[in-house]
């Protein structure tokens, strides 16, 4: 029989990091202790617990990590609740990589980059951020604007403090929605924070977060003078096959699983507003 992508491989969970009250980051390798497959930043994998279900998750680790893959997963449904109950050593099924990924080897090369993330929206962008940091000779400077509901909901907080903020090529601005004891950083929603920060108009923007945050942030960026063609986002819709055949993650004639999940806003403009 020919190879069948719908039949998954086994992944072993080798580490579980509790990021926030509802986000955990899972480290996954194959049965042989090596990475199950290689990927491009922004690509995704189908993870499943047999008997519970299968779902698409962005790979949050960078391809430059040669040892393992990581998935930051928010507990918000049936499968993710099961995943959150896992202990180290648990096996899951994994298949991929799926989707187009961010154009790190073409359009993003040589560019100054601006990452804007809200909440768990940092997960797919973290892959690009660490990729760009590891290959800094190929990219310009990096500006990261990241916000969350509260200080406790910032994903990858330790990595942000220890590594990103320590990187001289990277500027990090954090915000939380409401004032909180012990937080002396910025307080306020991301769209207005971005406008306050007046990011450099020459930057290529990568944005991911809740739909409402994306909408208002994009409006603000356009008002500042950014073109839609310099802003990328990554989408998430219901998926079953992950290869453009089961028919449910389409926006117009594009399938998010294979034509996306990364789209430029000028490309999204040509599609029906049904996402």
């Amino acid at each position, binding site marked *: *029989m*020919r*190879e*069948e*992508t*719908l*039949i*998954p*491989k*086994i992944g072993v969970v080798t580490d579980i990091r509790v990021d926030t009250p509802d986000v955990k980051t899972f480290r996954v390798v194959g049965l042989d202790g090596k990475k199950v497959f290689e990927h491009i930043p922004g690509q995704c994998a189908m993870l*499943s617990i*047999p*008997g*519970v*279900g*299968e779902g698409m998750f962005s790979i949050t680790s960078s391809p430059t990590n040669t040892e393992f893959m990581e998935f930051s997963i928010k507990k*918000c*449904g*049936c499968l*993710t609740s099961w995943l959150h109950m896992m*202990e180290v*050593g*648990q*096996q*899951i*099924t994994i298949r991929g990589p799926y989707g187009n990924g961010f154009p790190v080897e073409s359009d993003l090369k040589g560019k100054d980059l601006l990452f804007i993330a809200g909440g768990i929206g940092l997960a797919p962008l973290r892959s690009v951020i660490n990729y760009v940091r590891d290959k800094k000779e190929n990219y310009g400077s990096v500006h990261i604007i990241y916000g969350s509901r509260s200080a406790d909901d910032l994903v990858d907080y330790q990595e942000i403090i220890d590594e990103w903020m320590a990187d001289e090529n990277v500027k990090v601005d954090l915000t939380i929605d409401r004032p909180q004891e012990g937080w002396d950083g910025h307080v306020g929603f991301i769209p207005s924070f971005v406008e306050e920060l007046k990011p450099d108009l020459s930057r290529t923007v990568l944005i991911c977060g809740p739909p409402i945050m994306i909408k208002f942030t994009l409006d603000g960026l356009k008002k500042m003078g950014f073109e839609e063609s310099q802003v990328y986002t990554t989408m*998430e*819709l*219901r998926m*079953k*096959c992950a*290869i453009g*055949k*089961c*028919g*449910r*993650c*389409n926006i*117009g*004639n594009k399938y998010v699983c294979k034509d996306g999940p990364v789209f430029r806003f000028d490309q999204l403009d*040509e*599609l*029906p507003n*049904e*996402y």
Partner: protein
Amino acid sequence: MKKIALTKLDELFAAIAASKSLYLPVDTEKGAKYTAWTEGAKLSEATNTVRSAKDFFFPQVEDMASFKVEGKKIEVIDTRKEAEDFVVFGVRACDAKSFEILDSVYLVDPVDSYYASRREHGVVMTLACSRPTETCFCKAFGIDAAEPAGDISCWKTEDSLLLKANTEKGQALLDSLSMLEDAEDTAADAVKAATREIVEKLPLSNLSTDAFGGDKLSALFDSDKWESLSESCLACGTCTFVCPTCQCYDIRDYDTGHGVKRFRCWDSCMYSDFTLCAHGNTRTTQMQRFRQRFMHKLVYYPANNNGVFGCVGCGRCMRSCPISMNIVKVMKTLEG
């Protein structure tokens, strides 16, 4: 071209069934249905079967894999088997075209091995229509009811069945049937002309597709007519079920008590949970779901497939919809 007397059809079917499973439309209380041939089975005279022929390659339910779960360990069991050789006889031109449409979904990279195995092992013997009816509109989608595709095309004349191979697979099957006699290549011309003459007179034959296609996306999506068109849709999914080109599926797990079976089954974009995510739903109203089904066939599919429409005009949705909604009404309303 080959031929055999209609009185010897049983002999032909028996010869095919001797080496491969043979399926053909047989009349039942609920209309014509593809049935495994057994001695004495009579080929239906119906214009078409109630259900389409897609089941042969894309069955309603099929197993994908199994899992053994023990503590923290999982074992993946590849339960796939190469399909067995089979022949399906009596497929109409519309359904034959639907296979091409399914192919361009399932046989493009990455190839769906379940579907591919059945396609490789199945021989499609089509039968030209002799009595197209008022619910037929294949002509609108460029299909000639008198010249069906498939591995072997067949025509029924007054006294014979004419057979012509179109593929190597079809030729091999014809070569193995020693009871066939040679016939003139023009032998089917008279019945073809008769069929085309009926098609010309059918009320829906001149249905226009000009208003549709991949380049009409935003105008059609934003039409204000979807609301009234979809108002009485019950979301039963019958149209999807009988449609030869509807190919959306669901993947589900089933705990057998001894392990987990992963299977796929037909799904419908008409259902409210089709796009339901933990974080919300992209199509919350029946209008959006209704629109998706017709936009897919008339706009999205052609946009991705060089203008080929995702409908073959078989008319099954017309006969099956409990509220008498169908693609023809949709097309005429959107266009007008």
